[in-house]
């Protein structure tokens, strides 16, 4: 099975008004759910301090 990677940044921006890490984290989880809802096969999600690495089946 071929795979492709999508990244989601978790490190927050430094300016006021930008999303904080908790918000980015929640939004990232929402994005992963969206990918699933749209038919993507999410094979794995790897989390580091800076980002989610979402591994999808490359259909």
């Amino acid at each position, binding site marked *: 099975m071929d795979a*492709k*990677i*999508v*990244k*989601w*940044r978790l*490190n*927050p*921006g*430094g*300016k006021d*008004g*930008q*999303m904080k890490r908790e918000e*980015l984290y929640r*939004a*990232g989880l929402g*994005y992963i759910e*969206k*990918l699933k809802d*749209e038919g*993507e096969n999410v094979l794995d999600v790897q989390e580091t301090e800076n980002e989610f690495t979402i591994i999808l089946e490359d259909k």
Partner: protein
Amino acid sequence: MSEPIIFDKFYLGEGKSESDLNGFDKLTNADIHTTFGKVQCQLVGSLDNHTTVDESTVTCEDRSGQVYFFSSESGKIWKRTAGGTFSLVNTNTNGAHQGAKYFNGNLYYASQYKLGKFDGSTWSDSFATFSNNSLYHPMIEMNLSLFIGDSTYIAAVDSAGTFSANSLDIPTGAAASCFAMAGNDILIGTYTGTTTMRNTAYLWDTYSSSWTIEDEVYEVGFNCFIQLDNGIAAQCGLAGRIYIWNGSRFDKWKKIRGVTTGTGYQRSTVFNGKALFVVGDKVYSIHRTENDLPLAITQEYTSTTDPTYALAVSNAQLFMASTAGVDKIGTDYATATIDTPEVTGNYQNVIVNYDSLPTGTSIGISTKIDGATAWTAQTAITDTINKRVYFDGGLGDVNFLQARITLTPSGASTPIITSIIFQ
């Protein structure tokens, strides 16, 4: 009688008002740059294809001279070969397009929800999924990555082909509407909505988690950036206002008078070293031929269809994508008009000195007295010995005089004039 007044600084382009003597009231299809100090007709906008391509599009060109047109009304994608043949090459199952860019050997194209990719053999309409489903997906290549606007996120594709859905987030509410290169950084222009009269541009180095500088303009959005020679301008708002980037702020700069402007990140391009910007069916240039001259605005080309939303350059050709199809620059000339400023004084004649008046071409003179609403065509007399065109005087009492000079070409021949004199 008033002292004669001479208009010969065509390189100044359009002035700031109808009565600004440091420029012309209006220049239409006018080439003020080819021969310094003179003005001639510009080449005509002509049909390239209005049958295969029959919808408004966004465009991008690859490195081999092929230009792709992506419908902003449907999922259709057309290719124009370097030889000029159009064909439908794909229909995006995700619908209409908002942006496209050739990057790293692949063609990327954005519909509202998905980023598509064409690697030269396979069309992958759902290569990646946007997080925000923005109606604006401008794209720019910078620092070995492709950046794509997605509302409050800037998505990216890196050189390995990995998609990042949120390389940068900007404050909620506005959408990234256009990008420009600013040194090693990118400028991100935003648009909020028709009722929001204040929008912000962000300068971002493309890898930090936040931007470096931000600046507001009190306009309804950044419509597009215009790449000047070592400078960046931004066309903002509804009334043709242009701002210039001074490295940290946008300064109010120029205004294209009498136009209504709107969003569209592909409304500008650079063609033969000239920055071009399209509004309606009119393509304006912001250009100077030498560094010590002022940047001049003139209306150079006219597409066959209003509105035209996107410009592209490939194979030394300018393409204008409109609701009806694709236009290009023809080989014949278009009829040009030069409207002088309105001048105070009891002037009785207008003399046009010319450099060249080829067979079949002509120079016409119309006048407007005391702010009349309509132009009055005068019977022009051509003096081929002294190389000037004039009319028999007799305008009566004149308080304000304005003249329109019409340069009528003949095929690939154009009149060239050197000065306009009121006396």
